[in-house]
């Protein structure tokens, strides 16, 4: 886990560890996928409705928002940072888009621009987080925590007691309209995932984020503007959360402050289960998406096989930990540092 740092010869110099690490990365790559398949099989045995086309659609549709969020989050996690601002950013985005598009509260109607504005607003939050974390050297854990509160606060103010319901027919279209049996939002999500993959593989942001997560000091030493790329990563993530907020607003047909409730831990769990490590530098968009599917399938399946709502959470928790434990078990070493 610990990357080679300056001031220390790299942890392993022999060949054997390298081999074991290849095995490790292999596990990290395909373990979650295996877990996903296993889950699907189990559920389709336990519940007749699970393996139906209708339910598959439902799973994909309900995974859409979480997937989008997780794509953004992945880049932050790749830095080795963490992001708890999701709920706040989504709330503000949700309210602002609802207020800027044709709605029941005011006469403003920017149409598509409203969405752009909301996403931009999300980006601003990300930017602020980035600047605070890098400029003030505050752990992202705290900056994002504060940002979340600020976001929810702003949303509350915008909300002002009356839900702004979106009246724009186009949005209605997007909410209910379907392509190939999937809601349009699902395709938006797929689009975002693809963009995420491209960014991760083909852009400085993607590669440098990875590098920074892998060995920040070395990146600095190589003259990389670490602060800048960190900030950009947060900004990108913020924008994506903003989009997620818009998606929720479209789904619900009105802007609500609770748009992002519960999504934050869900997204983190998804990313981690998928093999994107909190320590940074590992995993990626694809990993996280597998994670998202695992989480969504879990929720969906548990409801379908009629597990009591009380224990659903608990069962999820156990399964998640168990999954990680199983995939990580072979990597255990006496001197391995796990925080």
């Amino acid at each position, binding site marked *: 886990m*610990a*990357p*080679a*740092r*300056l*001031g*220390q*010869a*790299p*942890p392993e*110099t*022999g*060949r*054997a560890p*390298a*081999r*074991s*690490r*290849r095995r490790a*990365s292999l596990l990290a790559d395909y373990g979650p996928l295996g877990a996903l398949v296993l889950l699907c099989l189990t559920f389709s045995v336990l519940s007749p409705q699970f393996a139906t086309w209708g339910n598959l659609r439902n799973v994909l549709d309900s995974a859409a928002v979480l997937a989008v969020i997780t794509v953004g989050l992945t880049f932050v996690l790749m830095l080795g940072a963490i992001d708890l601002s999701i709920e706040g950013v989504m709330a503000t985005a949700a309210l602002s888009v609802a207020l800027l598009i044709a709605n029941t509260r005011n006469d403003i109607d920017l149409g598509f621009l409203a969405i752009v504005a909301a996403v931009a607003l999300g980006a601003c939050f990300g930017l602020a987080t980035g600047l605070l974390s890098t400029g003030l050297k505050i752990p992202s854990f705290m900056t994002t925590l504060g940002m979340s509160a600020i976001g929810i606060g702003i949303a509350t103010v915008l909300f002002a007691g009356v839900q702004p319901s979106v009246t724009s027919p186009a949005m209605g279209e997007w909410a209910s309209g379907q392509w190939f049996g999937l809601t349009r939002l699902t395709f938006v999500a797929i689009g975002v995932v693809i963009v995420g993959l491209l960014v991760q*593989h*083909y*852009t*400085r*942001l993607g*590669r440098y984020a*990875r*590098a920074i*997560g*892998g*060995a920040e000091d*070395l*990146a600095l*030493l*190589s*003259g*990389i503007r670490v602060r800048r790329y960190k900030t950009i990563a947060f900004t990108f993530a913020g924008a994506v959360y903003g989009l997620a907020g818009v998606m929720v607003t479209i789904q619900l047909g009105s802007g609500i402050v609770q748009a992002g409730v519960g999504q934050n831990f869900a997204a983190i769990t998804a990313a981690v289960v998928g093999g994107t490590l909190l320590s940074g*530098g*590992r995993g990626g968009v694809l990993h996280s998406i597998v994670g998202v599917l695992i989480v969504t399938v879990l929720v969906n399946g548990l409801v379908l096989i009629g597990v009591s709502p009380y224990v659903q959470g608990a069962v999820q928790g156990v399964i998640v930990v168990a999954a990680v434990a199983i995939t990580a078990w072979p990597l255990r*070493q*006496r*001197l391995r540092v796990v925080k």
Partner: protein
Amino acid sequence: MSAPAEAPVLAVHDVRKTFGETTALDGLSFEVRRHEVVGLIGENGAGKSTLLKMLIGLEQPDSGSIALRGEQIKMRGIAQAGAAGIGMVFQEQSLIPNLTVAENILFGAEGDAIVGGMYRWKTLRQRAQAQLDKIGSTIDVDAMAEDLTFAERQLVEIAKVLATEERTNAEPVVLLDEPTSVLDRDEAEVLFAQIERLRTRASVVFVSHRLDEVLQVSDRVYVLRNGSSVAECVPGEVDEAELRRLMIGRDLEGSHYSEERQLPVQDEVRLRVRDLSVKGVCESVDFDLHVGEILGIAGVQGSGREELCRGIFGASATRGSLEMDGRPIRTSSPRSAISSDIGFVPAERRREGMVGTMSVAENITLPHIADVCAGPVLQRSKERRLADDWIERLRIRTASAAAPLASLSGGNQQKAVLARWMVSDSLKLLILDHPTRGLDVGAKSEVYRLIRELTASGVSVLLMADSLEELIAMSHRVLVMKDGRVTDVVDAPVGAKPTPVTVLERMI
């Protein structure tokens, strides 16, 4: 291989650099000519690394000038230095573990491999491959840096430095900082061959503590002391002893390895190792370690000697049997090993040897905290006395016992780490993994002295050292390991020490 007389590629003239009241560089001048390998030696604090930092733009000189190919340059940061054609191969390496070789070679200087912020992987690979070809390496450009061996990584670093050629259309200056400190002899030889190749297309500055190597590869050697160059010599005309004298400015009292203090081995066996295996790295190792004996272990990278020692200390899982003074022991964890009076000084001091943020005293008492506790209660005064006592005995230079260990110099840090084990009277076996790595000559001979003192008091030592010379000089016997097995045992009594060559043969 004398260099042609022409304008030097790199000329450092009368640079000064002070940190507060400390003078790191005091009017240092030196030059590197075309296709020349210049050796740079000096004790820690002589100013070597300040100089290197300056050459790659991490420090700015207070006064004086640095001229590259005839023109004055000022560099802020490695990126600029690279752009100017000066690159450094770091002692502890600077490759990013989770990026591919190709990315690492062009990291931060992708040039036309990134168009409009988008990577063009094809170009990236080709250009990286081109660099590797220069040094005739067959490393896969798509491999992850972390999956390479140390030596391979070092080659990648060299390729990375050579990559500056294209950018500058000029032959680069390559700074090799302690390149061999963690290489074994054979790997070092590969590296030297590489340097010979480099010589044809670049100028090289070679910094090392291993004087024999410096003499072997350099055309000229500068000896630094107290921030200025005290001597410039040509290998043919000086020997190691002379260099050592120049570095320290005085003769070392006694011999470097204090061999005269090597006592004859006692008969009774301290540690009996039988059929010891560490999964995947070493197979059924047998040996006996006598009381007061220093048993050196020689072996190349991957010979499994580190893993063996870590296994004995319980830091990695083992099979087989251990007997301490005739009683079988199990070392299921470092803690259990310590409780059966084994101590371990790891090679990576900062990463494994010490807790830099904690005070010298706290570091010293860490393993045997019980000794300074009354029941569960920590007795700070007692701890303080103990620490002060050992700081005194080992002549550890520190502001106080309460100073954070990180604020001490490497040599003194290492002494503190040794003290940690010496405090316990019951210590029976001390495992030393490259105890002198990264230390300067003075500090080294002090560490050697301490090791001798330990053995004199009956402690047995398992030793792995940076150079074979050191290993042989220190040890009573040398255990030779190859591919995870003990292939030979060479006796090394005082006066009749085997030559490194004889041991080397058995290693490969």
